């Protein structure tokens, strides 16, 4: 057979481009069943917009989640999705990525899912630094199971398991993440500033490595008032900006005047910012593009042909073989 190179006309090319141009509807599926006003809705909108703007092929994109209200997100994406078991979204996503580096992987997880039952995986995912974007939908409560305290619940919060208020200081997901070796991207956003959420998710997506985005998310069902003080007082949000971080639009700058220039390559400053909750720091806290990705470290560029496998296997058999008379290789 002679080799054929595919040539297409300019007009056909345009048609194809048009065909491959996706609309936001192409990424939507079903009707979300979250409570009205739930912050998960705005996260969904942001990622659908991101997929469209980046022109992600739906069949090459996988959303992996655990269990919780937040983990329902993959069901509303018209991409591949994996809605697994409580706490284990990250190792599933790592398996997907190691097997198929060609796929774009997102992870959606809750504060219980990630910071409690899945905490070990969270620490190690940071260390593996595999190329994926993780969204921590942090509503500071267990939503799906009806209002139990989570590790990120503020001290004293009354819940169904802590009717007299929680006993322990909240766990800070940002400082924890920043404390793990190989950390390569850490950001924080709030669900009520969509512009910032979109921009941060976009940068997280473009970052090669494990991008950790904590999203402070409202649970209107169980904690309808918890975040009101921050929602209503714009001075209680601190915008982090930098030429290598968040770009603040003039419109945004008008509503949110509390800002701080922060270079995301500065770890010490990132840790200091991460430790404060009031005002809520929003933006990119840390970024390091030089941390190697586990899938690249383990990648083998050779084609895994049957003959490669056979060769390897035979040489192993040779090591253990007792040759019958006359069969001994020269």
């Amino acid at each position, binding site marked *: 057979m002679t080799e054929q190179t595919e040539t297409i006309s300019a007009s056909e090319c345009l048609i194809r481009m048009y065909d491959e141009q996706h609309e936001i509807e192409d990424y939507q599926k*079903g009707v979300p069943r979250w409570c009205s006003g739930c912050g998960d809705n705005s996260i969904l909108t942001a990622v659908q917009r991101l997929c469209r703007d980046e022109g992600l092929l*739906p*069949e*090459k994109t*996988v*959303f*992996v989640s655990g*269990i919780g209200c937040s983990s329902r997100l*993959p*069901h509303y*994406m*018209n*991409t*591949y*999705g*994996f*809605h*697994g*078991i409580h706490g*284990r979204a990250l*190792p*599933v*996503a*790592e*398996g*997907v*990525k*190691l*097997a*198929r580096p*060609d*796929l774009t992987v997102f992870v959606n997880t809750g504060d219980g899912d990630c910071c409690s039952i899945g905490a*070990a*995986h969270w*620490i*190690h995912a940071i260390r593996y630094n595999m190329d994926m974007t993780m969204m921590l939908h942090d509503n500071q409560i267990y939503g799906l199971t009806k209002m139990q305290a989570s590790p990120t619940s503020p001290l004293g919060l009354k819940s169904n398991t802590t009717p007299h208020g929680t006993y322990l200081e909240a766990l800070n997901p940002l400082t924890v993440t920043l404390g793990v070796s190989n950390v390569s991207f850490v950001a924080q956003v709030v669900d009520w500033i969509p512009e910032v959420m979109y921009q941060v998710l976009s940068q997280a997506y473009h970052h090669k490595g494990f991008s950790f985005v904590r999203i402070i998310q409202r649970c209107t069902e169980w904690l309808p008032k918890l975040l009101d003080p921050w929602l209503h007082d714009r001075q209680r949000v601190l915008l982090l900006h930098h030429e290598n971080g968040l770009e603040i639009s003039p419109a945004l700058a008008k509503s949110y005047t509390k800002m701080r220039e922060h270079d995301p390559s500065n770890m010490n400053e990132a840790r200091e910012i991460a430790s404060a909750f009031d005002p809520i720091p929003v933006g990119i806290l840390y970024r390091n593009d030089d941390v190697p990705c586990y899938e690249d470290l*383990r990648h*083998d560029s*050779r084609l*895994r042909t*049957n003959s*490669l*496998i*056979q*060769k*390897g*296997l*035979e*040489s*192993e*058999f040779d090591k*253990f*073989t*007792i*040759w*019958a*008379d006359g*069969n001994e290789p020269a």
Partner: protein
Amino acid sequence: MALEINQTESETVTTEPKFGGKAVMLEEHIVEIISDSGEGAQKCGQSFGAIAARMGFGVWTVEIIPAEIRPPARSVAGASGNRIRIGSKRITNGGNETDLVVAFNEQVLLGRVRSKELKPGCTILLESMWRTSSNPRFAKSYVETYDQLVAAGYRVYEIPMDKECRKVVSDPRKGKNMFALGVLCGIYSLDLKVARQQIALTFSKKSDEVIKSNVNLLEAGYRYAEEHIDIKYSIPAVKSTENQIVVNGNTALALGVLASGMEICAMYPITPATSASHYLSDVFEKVGGIVHQAEDEIAACTFAIGASYAGKCTVTITSGPGYSLKQEAIGLAVMGEIPLVVVNVMRGGPSTGQPTKTEQGDLMTTIFGSHGDAPKVVIAPGTIEDCFYSVITARKIAETFNMVVVILSDANLATSQQPFRRPVFSEEWMAPPIDQSAVPKGAKPYDWDPKTGLARRFVPGQPNGMHTLTGLAHDVNSHVAYDPEINQQGMRARSLKLATLQKTLRPPTVFGDPTGDLLVIGWGSSKGAIEEAVEGLRAEGKKVSALHLTFIQPLPPGIREILAGFKQHITIENNWCDQWEDEMIDETNRRYSALALLLRSRYLVDIDCWSECRGTPLKPNTVRRVILEKLS
């Protein structure tokens, strides 16, 4: 401290000539070499087994492993070494008690005596340096033990190993094992040429000097045996006309992973499964494979599930405690119909149990494990060779049926070596390439076939196949659905796949006559011991046969017909069942062994069981005793 030595009834004085005369012909023998850990007895034993195998003997070697990494020197519980059964015929198990033992000190020897592993009156070659030890405690203990052993009828040879080795090397601690190997080669008339080759192979990564000094030690040992020991055995060997490979069960499993075409193994270290992953870590990359050591077993299993879901059927290897941790994830793979191979190299349980010891305690957990109805395939290799092929079979079934396939090996197979025919590579072993073709518009991710329960799987990357896999109850579109009918439909499909697989299985074959007084049923690593005992009793005219099951879920067809050919049935297993002798136990409360319980419920036949949980492999003599009791 009491010695607790078995007294021999009568010491039959054999008229063996002092060596110099003719070697005594034997059909088979069991040899042990034991030392403190780190003194190289394992290497000696393995080499001895390999030399014997190369010469054409039937061989089965088992590691003797102390429960701790570095037990104190000279401790009763610290015996480390190897047990080698050699014979002129093919050998299928570790056999009964030991005939001849080489011990580097009297304490490790005592451990073996107390656990009744040594044949009464057996031959002991004992390092004698302790007799003159500068530590009076050692010297006293040595002399006392020696005297008691002799009084108990053991045939003890004191060998100044340390002194003899010093004639060849400066540090005898490093070379005593090869000296001992030479002694054994001398006693069993093994070919020195083959032994030298084996040493070169064993130390192939070391310098020529190291090889040379080890060969010198070997030859010194051989000469010592000829000059000082009045026993010489000869076992006729028939060299195989086929190429064979000699590996232990864990290496065979790892080779099976290579041969199955799988590309990723996700694991977390745990005894006695780890050595499979060690070996795989060493070789998998040569063929583009990856061993991923996860942060825990839950991560290992879910990582494997993620990789499988993405198109590359993956294996996760573990043992008891790790296997328990994987249960929820296994249920997810069952529910999502993700192919997955899980290897459980069983150890003693429950809890941390007996990490280095063998048991068949996980059968029920495997079949019924994970909450809800979670049908999965369970296969149990019965030989080292099975360990290799079971992985290839498991990968195929997993991908054909989109199911979880669990391979139940155990510590016995994991640490035993037995030669088997060198496998001939087949393209059919390999995994197919990942399907990235477009899914026909309108096709559904769980389009369950109403007859077989099978559904096609859509892999990420396939256009039009987008769906969200979920561990929640779901409909044909993979949409979450709690509708009663839809849940029934999904449960039915996942269960039907087992029946569909069962239709493709061949009935098992009976070892012995298809009819008789008693059928002994077993599974997994006890195959060799059971068949050996049955063969012996058949030769004595007993109407007993054996049935070994490799597929346990689903059980293959034809078993009902086989059971019908026998008056009585008993399973013999290496797990727990209540004993009739216990006062509280009667037919209303007796807990049966796992396989017996399964077979009783399926075939409504009054199948008895016998089992033990001693942490050691079943011995043919034990099986023999149980059969005779059952027949009487």
